Each structure stands twice: as C-alpha cells, then as structure tokens.
C-alpha cells in the first residue's frame, strides 16, 4: 500500500519531519552521553514557582539517558513506520501531532528533575495517549478504551501528585537531586502514605494487577501507537518512576513485598493470557504486561545483579517489542488479518518482514547470541530463590508466544484465502523492525557497548556495582534454567493451538470497571436530581440556607468577641432610619416598583455613610451602582406579571426562617469584625507611598490602577464577561421567541 502512494502530501511530510526531529534528539542525546557518563548528570534549570520551591528543571543522568534514548530512537522509527502505515489517512497530520506531543511529554517525564514538573508531564502522557488510543474516534470501542486508559492512568496520577507533595514535605524539596541524595525517606513518618500513593501512580501507569485491564484494551489504537506506547514509552513510565525513586523508597519490607507480589502476579497471569490469544496484537499486549511485571519484580530488590537485570531486560524488551508490533502491523497491513489461526507461510510474500520478525522473536525467546539471551541469564542470576519457578514458567510461556507470533505466520504451507493479497510493506515500515532486530543482535554480540551506561545507571541507585554482561557466563545455574526454559517453552509452543481462548469477551476486571463507571454515573444522576432541580427557588433556598448555617455554626464554634455599641451621631441615626424604611419597602408584597425603590433607598443610605466616613470614591461608586441596579431591575422586573402569593403558609414560614438565619449571621459577622480595631498596616503603606511611587493623590484610584492593577484587570474581564454572558444567555431566548 505504501509504495503505490508515492505522491507528495503535506501530512506525510510532517511524518518525515517528526521522524527527523526524533532522530536529531537521539543524536543530541548521543552527543551528551559522554558528558553524562563522566559528570553523572547534565542539568537544566528554569524558575517556575520559586515561592513554592518548584522549578521547571531537568536532569539527564544515566537512568534518564537510557529511557530518553529509547523514547527518541524508537520514536523516530515509529514516525517513519506510521508514515508508511497510515500516511494516506485523511487525518494523518493530526495523528503525527498527537504522537509528537506524546513523545515530547514522555521525554519531559524522564528528564524532569523537579517532582511537580515530572507530574505535569506524567499527566500530559495520559492525556496525549488518550488522544492516540481514541484516534479512530468513530469507533465506540476505541472511545471507551481510550477513556478507560485515561481515567485509570490519570486517576493514578492524582494519587501520585498527593504522593509527590508528601515527598516534598518529608524531604523538604521537590528537587529529585536533593531527594535522592538526602538518605532516603524510609524512616519518615509519612513513608507509608508516600509509598502507597506513589505505587498507586506507578502501578496504574504500568498496568500492574489489579490495574492491568486497560492495557490490552488500549490495542484499539492504530498499530504504530501500540508499538510505541507498549515498547519504550507510556507503560514504561511507571517502571521509570519506580526506578527513579528506588534509592529514596526501596529497601523496606513493604516495598519488597508489594512490588514482588504485584510484579510476580502480573508476569505470571499475563504470560498465561498471552498464549491464549488469537489476535497477534492482543498476544503482544499481554506479553508487554508480562515484561512490566518482570521489571517491577526486579525493582523490588536492591542488589546490583537484580537492577542490572531489570535495566537490561528493559532495553531488550523495548527493542523486540517495538519491532514485533511493527511486524504485526505490517502483516495486518499486507494481508488484512491478525488472526493466529489464519496466517501462515507469509515468508514468500513478505520475506523482509519475516526476517525481521525472526530477529526480534529470537531475542524475545532469549536465544543466543541475542541481547535477549543475556537479559534472561541476568534475570535468572538476579531472581530471589523462591521466585525461580514462576519466572521459569513465565519465560517458557513467552518463549512459546514468540514462536506463535513470529514463526507461525511466516512459515509452513502457503496461506489460505485472506482479506488482501499478501504483499511486502514499504521501506518506511521495514526500517523499524530491521534496525531494532539488528540492534538486538549487535548488542548481544557486543554487550560491552551497553556496559558503561548500565554501570553508571546502577551506580546511580546507590547499590552494589552492576553485574557484567556476558554472552557466555560459564556453566552455572542460569544456564541450566535457560535450557529448562527452552524445553518447556518448546512443548508449550507445540501445545499452543489447543490453548487458545474461546471467546474474546471482557475480562473480570474489565467488567468490574464498567460496573464502577455505571455506578458513578447513576450516583451523579441521583445527586443532580436532588441538587440541580432546575427551579430557581430551590437553588436560592439551598444556597442561602447553607451559607447562613455554615456561618452560624462557625460563629458558634469560634465564639468571637462581639462589639455592640449604639453611640453614633444623629445624622447616622437618621440615615439608618431611612434604610430600615427602605428595607421594609423592599419586602412589601404589592408593588414591584416599590420594591426597587426600597432597595435603592438602602443602597443610597450606604453611600451616604461612606461619604460621612470620608470615602467619597467608594460613595460615588456605590451611588452609580445603585442607579444602574435600579435601571436593570426596572427593565427586568417590571415586565413580570403582578405579584400574587402562591406559596403555602408552611413554605412562607420556611422562607422567613431562612431569611432570619442569613440576616442574623451577617449581623453577627459585622459585629465580630467591628470588635477588632482595623489593621492599619496596609493603609499606612498606601498613604505613604501613593504619591511618591505612583504620582497620585487619590489613594483609592492609585490602588485600582497601579498597586493592584492586575486585580483590576481581572475584575474588568469579569465585568465584560458577565455582560457578554448575559447577552449570550438572553440571545437564545430572543432567538427562540423570534424563530
């Protein structure tokens, strides 16, 4: 498909451009690698919220370098691949944008040095992956699964934010460099809460049991997205976080037990599920889960061997998983099918795809001389003794799945009828699998290339030095276990066709999720029915009752000093008398114009009081506002029909009661406020500096336009938006009346 659409298009050009940028970033990382390995970390700082100690700061240390290199390198190949895979999609430009934003978010996440910065990028990856998973937005399933992925990961993200803030309290800084060198948080009284919250975030992102269900569902995404999200990025973010915070949080019983249980259960469960899938993509998705489980399992420990094993396996997995997803996508693209049972003998039509599939699958199966072999040997060397058997089982299952995914479709008799005549993919789609497959071989033959980076990264954990990567480590237990793996895996491969799952129905966790969402929705409906009745009188009743009662309860609890002082000059008494009369007039049930006049009288009384106490600006403003209110009330209220009492006596009594409560609470607040002498500090400052700093004698106006100009600007926006908002609301009414 790719080769016959050679015509130039802008969105394809965007795909190539994005690939070029990703490769350029990769090259830049490569150029910085020397500095990282010699100095430990390259830093970059920008003050963001200095008052809270939050900075937009970044750090490139060996651990971040591993992840960043995978993100940009594989990212570049993915962009190339996507251009071949779906370059003629009408919305391919949008796709490239989403994928590029995702890559940058991911890069920001692994490079962030400030926890809050890290969190922002963490949520950005959730958001952009939502857009990517739901890219086929006309498919309701894609929309649902995208939403599920976002709710699970962003929900975990909220827990993570709380955890980060607690870390900030416990360590006294959000700066990772400070936190990691501060000797750990294991003894902090907040440790339990921090660990729980951080693990919630990491486990949701990295799809550990019981949050694993979103990841296989995320397969609704176009294949390039799956290849990227599942190999080097999204799901690795949780692993990255665990690795990043390992020095600060690990080493306790809680850390070891939780990570071991979650990781072990996920790895075993996922590898069993993987071999039962008919859909090649689903099978790969479950092996991703298995890999994540293994990574979490090994991060539970703190020995140099275990950490080396985790990081090596991370690289192994990223290389082969991206390649295999791209292969599966190419098969899907070339034949129109991803069904394990239908595909066979494709090597004749797709020879290059078959070769790259073989390269990747051999690494996945852990055969020598590939990097996968070294990774598996390290896993066996580093595993806790009582977990040897589960790990053996998981590895054997993955061995079998590698055969199912990468051998079955390409070998054997020619295929039966398929939706499309099988054909080889274009060069853009072949570049990724070939490069990554060859990389797995090259690193396997020359593990020394990775050694310095792994050494530095493991040293960063503060653990024992890294284990050495050897293709041949001598005759030892891992070697024996490897052979056991191959034997068991071979048997499972032969038995695989009989293990296929019957249906493709939702898993138990997935059904629970749906029930949870449905419950939430019906709870919201109930709440809405009670509170949001749509009747103005109900809203007013609830608002005023709440405001009045909350105030009264607070006052009763705090018991503030109340100033009751009736001494006032005569003019004030006269004004107060007028205001009382106005208030009474506002309550008369006979005439709306009398009500408006009453309210106006009260307002003008207030303006006069301002004037008497020497605040002419406020008084004039109050007067103007009163006039305008009268105008607005007049326009609105005088169009209403005459007042007729329709409330029942009980309802009237209720309204009188609410009015009494609100009136009482406001009165008490005023008495409490006037009991204290006003704080003159600000007033003195403005009096002293109004003319010298702002060249103005009218302090009120100087405050408005100079000292507090930004606030005024906000208020202006509100005034204007209120006007426009009212216009928009009423406009609908006008339109309806005319139409």
């Amino acid at each position, binding site marked *: 498909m790719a080769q016959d659409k050679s015509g130039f298009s802008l969105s394809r050009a965007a795909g190539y451009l994005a690939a070029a940028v990703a490769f350029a970033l990769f090259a830049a990382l490569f150029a910085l690698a020397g500095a990282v390995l010699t100095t430990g970390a390259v830093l970059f700082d920008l003050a963001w919220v200095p008052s809270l100690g939050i900075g937009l700061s970044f750090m490139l240390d060996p651990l971040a370098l591993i992840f960043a290199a995978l993100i940009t390198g594989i990212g570049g190949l993915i962009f190339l691949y996507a251009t071949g895979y779906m370059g003629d999609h009408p919305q391919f430009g949008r796709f490239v944008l989403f994928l590029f934003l995702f890559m940058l978010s991911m890069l920001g996440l692994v490079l962030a040095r400030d926890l809050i910065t890290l969190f922002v990028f963490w949520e950005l990856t959730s958001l952009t992956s939502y857009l990517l998973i739901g890219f086929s937005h006309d498919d309701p399933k894609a929309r649902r699964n995208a939403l599920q992925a976002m709710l699970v990961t962003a929900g975990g993200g909220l827990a993570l934010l709380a955890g980060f803030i607690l870390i900030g309290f416990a360590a006294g800084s959000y700066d990772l460099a400070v936190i990691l060198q501060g000797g750990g948080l294991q003894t902090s009284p907040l440790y339990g809460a921090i660990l729980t919250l951080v693990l919630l975030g990491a486990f949701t992102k990295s799809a550990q049991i019981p949050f694993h269900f979103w990841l296989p569902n995320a397969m609704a995404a176009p294949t390039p997205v799956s290849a990227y999200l599942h190999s080097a990025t999204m799901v690795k973010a949780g692993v990255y976080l665990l690795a990043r915070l390992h020095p600060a949080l690990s080493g306790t019983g809680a850390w070891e037990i939780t990570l071991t249980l979650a990781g072990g259960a996920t790895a075993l469960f996922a590898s069993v599920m993987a071999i039962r899938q008919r859909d090649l993509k689903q099978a790969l998705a479950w092996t991703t889960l298995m890999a994540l489980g293994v990574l979490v399992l090994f991060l539970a420990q703190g020995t140099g061997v275990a950490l080396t094993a985790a990081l090596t396996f991370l690289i192994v997995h990223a290389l082969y998983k991206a390649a295999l997803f791209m292969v599966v996508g190419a098969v899907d693209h070339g034949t129109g099918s991803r069904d394990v049972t239908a595909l066979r003998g494709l090597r004749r039509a797709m020879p290059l795809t078959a070769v790259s599939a073989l390269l990747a699958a051999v690494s996945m199966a852990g055969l020598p001389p590939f990097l996968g072999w070294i990774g598996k040997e390290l896993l066996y060397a580093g595993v806790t003794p009582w977990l040897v058997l589960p790990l053996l089982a998981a590895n054997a299952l993955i061995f079998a799945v590698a055969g199912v995914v990468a051998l079955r479709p390409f070998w054997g008799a020619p295929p039966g009828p398929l939706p499309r005549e099988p054909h080889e993919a274009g060069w853009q789609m072949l570049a990724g699998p070939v490069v990554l497959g060859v990389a797995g071989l090259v690193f396997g033959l020359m593990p020394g290339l990775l050694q310095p980076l792994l050494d530095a990264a493991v040293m960063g954990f503060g653990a024992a030095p890294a284990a050495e990567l050897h293709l041949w480590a001598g005759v030892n237990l891992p070697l024996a276990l490897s052979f056991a793996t191959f034997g068991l895996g071979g048997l499972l491969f032969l038995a695989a066709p009989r293990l296929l799952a019957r249906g493709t129905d939702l898993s138990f966790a997935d059904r629970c999720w749906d029930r949870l969402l449905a419950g939430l929705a019906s709870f919201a409906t109930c709440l809405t029915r009670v509170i949001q009745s749509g009747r103005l009188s109900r809203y007013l009743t609830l608002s005023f009752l709440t405001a009045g009662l909350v105030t009264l309860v607070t006052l009763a609890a705090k018991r503030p000093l109340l100033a009751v002082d009736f001494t006032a000059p005569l003019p004030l008494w006269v004004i107060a008398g007028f205001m009382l009369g106005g208030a009474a007039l506002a309550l008369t049930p006979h005439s709306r114009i009398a009500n408006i006049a009453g309210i106006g009288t009260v307002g003008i009384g207030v303006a006069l009081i301002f004037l008497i106490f020497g605040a002419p600006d406020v008084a004039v403003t109050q007067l103007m506002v009163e006039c305008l209110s009268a*105008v607005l009330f007049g326009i*609105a209220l005088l169009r209403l029909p005459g007042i007729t009492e329709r409330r029942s006596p009980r309802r009237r009594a209720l309204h009188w009661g609410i009015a009494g409560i609100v009136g009482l609470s406001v009165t008490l607040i005023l008495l409490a406020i006037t009991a204290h002498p006003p704080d003159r500090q600000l007033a003195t400052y403005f009096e002293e500096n109004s003319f010298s700093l702002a*060249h*103005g004698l*009218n302090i009120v106006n100087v405050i408005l336009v100079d000292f507090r100009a930004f606030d*005024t600007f906000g208020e*202006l926006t509100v005034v*204007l938006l209120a006007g426009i908002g009212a*216009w928009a609301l009423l*406009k609908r009414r006008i339109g309806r009346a005319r139409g």
Partner: protein
Amino acid sequence: MRSPILATGARLLLPLFLGFALYILLRGHNAPGGGFIAGLIAALGFAIVIFADGPEAARRMLRIDPRSLGGIGLVCALIAGGGAALSGGAPFQGIWLDLPVLPLSTVLLFDIGVFLAVIGGVLALIFALEDSGKAGG
C-alpha cells in the same frame, strides 16, 4: 409610551453625561473619580437614552457594539500592563513619561481601558435585557 420631551432631553443630557464622565476619568488620579466611576456614569447616560428613546436610538449614538467597546478597553488595559512588563518592569507597573505639562503614563491608558470595559460590560447587559424583553413580551 414614548415621550418626545423626555427623548429630546435625554439626547441633550447624553453629551453632558459623557463630558462629566471624561472629567471624572481624568481627575481620578488625584481627586475622587477614576475609570470605574466614569464608566458607570457614561453607561447611565446611555441608559437614560434607552429608557426615553428605545435601545435602537442608543445603539445609533454608541455607533459600536458594546461588546467590542469592552474588548477594546480590555486590550488597552492589557497594553498598559504588558508594556510595562516588556520595558523591564513588573507587569502592570506604572510607567510615566515625565513631560512638564502633560502627565502621560501607562496608568492613564489603563484607566481608559477600565472606563471602556465598564461601559461595554454594563451596556451589553442592558441591551440584552431590553432585546429579550421586546422579544419575549
């Protein structure tokens, strides 16, 4: 119920209101007044025209949609605030051109912005109420 006397009076009053509003606006920095009060006064002038002569007459005299007027005001205030930030000060810091007779400053521009935004916001609301009243009966 249109009264020709009131309508004519309102048309004569409007320039007075506007002139007074400008006066209040310009004296605001040293004596009671300022953009906010001035904006309310000007809006009141138009409100009288609306009452006496109907919203159409008021619209003709305003010549510009009140929402646009408010927007222009907001932009003025933003320029005043951003200009200070661009010239090295804090955002919304007052910058004075030290001329001998005319005390020009970004603060004045800001106050003019306040003036226009208040007129725009209030009149948008009044016009909308008037229109909906006419349409809804």
